[in-house]
């Protein structure tokens, strides 16, 4: 959980949902190949309490996600924050899963 990555890309899908919300982005690797990343955020209610909104991101938006990556090598991570094209930063805050909750294996 201590390692963090920063991935920039284009929003493919922002799913405001329970038990957790998911952000899918398309990113381009240094060699030019594209890949899809899935990032897990908190529940809809807790994200709202942290200042997020379901309308903060839409398909085609440019974002930079800071996250804790999955330990199994999949292109999956647990969101720490999302920087929007406007410069606004959405921090996990209350939206982070509670202690004891894992982001996936």
């Amino acid at each position, binding site marked *: 959980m201590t390692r963090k990555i920063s991935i920039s890309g284009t929003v493919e899908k922002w*799913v405001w*949902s329970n038990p957790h919300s998911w952000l899918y982005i398309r990113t381009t690797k240094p060699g030019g190949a594209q890949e899809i990343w899935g990032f897990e955020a908190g529940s809809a209610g807790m994200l709202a309490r942290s200042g997020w909104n379901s309308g903060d991101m839409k398909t085609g938006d440019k974002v930079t996600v800071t996250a804790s990556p999955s330990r199994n090598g999949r292109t999956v991570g647990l969101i720490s924050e999302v920087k929007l094209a406007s410069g606004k930063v959405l921090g996990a805050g209350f939206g982070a899963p509670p202690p004891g*909750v894992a982001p996936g294996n």
Partner: protein
Amino acid sequence: MKNRKTLLAAIMGSAMMALPSAGIAQAVPPPGPAGSPAPGSSAQGALERPTAIPMQAPSPNTMQPASTALGSKWSDVTKLPDFFAGNWQSVTSFLDREPKTPLTPKAKAYADAFKPITDIPFAGAGCKTPGMPTIQRLGSPLKFFFEPGMIAIYIENSSMTRFIKVNGKHAARPNPSYLGDSIGHFEGNEFVVESIAFADDILFQYTNFPGKGTSRFVLPIESVFGPHGPNLRMVERMKLLDPDTMEITLTIYDDTVWTKPYVANTQIFKRNRGDAGIPAEWVCGSGADPLEFDPVSNESIMQDPADVLKKLQAKDAK
């Protein structure tokens, strides 16, 4: 949507233990707010009721208590500790750390053979609730409501609500449920709640794997979950430590699992006020989570996010 396996086997029997009652039932409902007649007790109220729906006599299980103890009248709300403004968010772990209560031989044999799945154990298939006590601890808030003889607690996780009969008594023949059949009363500033009649597949923590602990973000969760006995009883004591901090202690009685009462880790909740204090709804089923339980390997498989995205986009295209 996650397709997660329920961890617990079903062994619960139907017999319920005899429990002390905290009040006496009566057939006449108490007055409504500000001394107004009880709903449905006036001629006007009778006229307003749909005539096509026959009135039913109240079940003995739903009678209001005759008690005059604190929590029985509308005016009591001014005397109760303020559990009600805003909502309460857990800031402590949903798992108990280092539980040391001795297990019975049967439970120890179960724990020694327990094989965890690689998954978050509280999320059942279709986002099924883990039930009490875990459901109150998952981080999303609790919202308290009061009416004479009743305190309700809305639990944002699962969008479920506990209904606690204040100064009342347990149902004569309670059916098993995930939140249990609950009665409560006030002892000074403490709200004491006793719950019985739990579903056989609530998420029920026995202990942890020896020496492994329960560090954050580790899968599988290093706890042993197992079946509970037919006479499982939980006693909570809720109180305010300060205007914005609530404490809940929990003692669990189940002599099929432990050789003495199990004292759970104390849970601390912080009050949210304003917009944050308004509960949200909780509905699962988006299909956005790439973690999916595989019953063949008995572990959850992380799907390729690109595949999950294709499914979501295909659903949108329909």
